[in-house]
């Protein structure tokens, strides 16, 4: 079992609503031309886990997937 949280994004379904960049700016950014998500940290710091989970829950196009839940925090 992976101890670290791992996150993936699906840029094809992203609509650039920016919820992720709002709540977890250390992990997600947006492209300046189309607003689409840019993943800055596929293995974020444990301190960011709650924000990453919230970003995944808030994402309106369900473009964020937490592929390993991260058991450390």
């Amino acid at each position, binding site marked *: 079992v992976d101890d670290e949280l791992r996150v993936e994004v699906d840029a094809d*379904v992203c*609509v*650039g*609503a*920016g919820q992720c*960049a*709002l*709540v977890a*700016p250390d992990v997600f*950014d*947006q*492209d*300046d*031309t*189309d*607003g*689409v998500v840019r993943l800055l940290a596929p293995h974020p710091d444990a301190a960011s886990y709650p924000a990453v989970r*919230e970003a995944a*829950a*808030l994402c*309106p*196009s*369900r473009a964020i997937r937490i592929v390993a839940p991260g058991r450390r925090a």
Partner: protein
Amino acid sequence: VNVPARPPAGRTLQPGSLPTARTGRFDPPPELAWIRAREPLSPLRYPDGHLGWLVTGYHLARTVLSDPRFSADSALKRVPVPRPGADPFMGAPALPGWLVDMDPPAHTRIRRALAGQFTVRRVAALRSGIARIVAEALDAMTAAGPPADLVAEFALPVPSMAICELLGVPYRDRDEFHRHSTTLFALDASAADADAAMATLTGYLRDLVRHKRVRRGPDLLSDVAARDALTDGELAGAGVLLLTAGHETVAGMLGLGTLALLCHPAQREALVRGRVPVDDAVEELLRYLTIFQFGVPRTPVEDVPLAGRVIRAGQSVTVSLPAANRDPDRYPRPDTLALSRVARGHLAFGYGVHQCVGQHLARLELRLAYPALFARLPGLRIAGGPDDVRLSHDMGFYGVHQLPVAW
């Protein structure tokens, strides 16, 4: 909160039309709460006799709005509150650039042409400009009053000037486009008047877009035009949507939100004294007031099993955002305005691929405007009699037509 007693319990509700009559200034029609408690997915009778569905539960609303089988295509759309004499079934393809009436991939192409202009980073860079607009509106209002109509002097000019500067629309034309956008969102406007307002606004934006293609300015319309991703017609249509929605919605939230804060002195005090973060306060006001008042129309393109029922392909669905945002399964004591609660995740901006593209701009305007208003005018109060406060029951976006104040 004045909520009438519930109707007698029964197994299934008889399908009725969408409740629209409010009994409190800030609360959705009370029948929505009864319906949600019994059946968060319930049969809904549309004005043309069509039997469809009403979604009032928060979790079901998110499910429907994020499921691509529920189409937003206006060719399939039926609205629960049509204009007088208009067919509730829209049955026409989306106008060019009118992305709220489209599904992916057509929607995605237009959305992406715009979304880069509204990223969190881009909007944050507008902060000082919006703060200046807020301060100037307060200067003008305090120079001329008291008294003042808070809507005409503050709630409308702030978002109107902000969206004009962002888009590159001349602010001197505001009276004209505000009149047309009021017609566009007024439920009692005839279909012919609404069509005429739409045609005038689209023509105005098309001329502006053509001008920007030749003489580029430091604004959104020029930037998007320069990328050549959209035709003149598409950018004009999207521009009408951004211009009208961009000022009517925030104006509604500023007017109604100010009224709500004036009517909840303890909450206002907590905000003014910094006991609640302004960002949290704004999210709670968005949830509590949810001004997109009659719901989002969707149509399944195939049979969809949902909450123990089957929604048949082509059966119209209305998702009530005000009802979903007052769902006690999601928000404890949902009918209480509690600025300190964590309201994030509310559906005031919608959900799914159509979630408001300008939401960060709206947030920024509200986060700057409420505190500045109460800091500048600590004695702000409602002036005149109760009838002088005119609420916009007659608009797609709920808000305040007129709010006389003194200080």
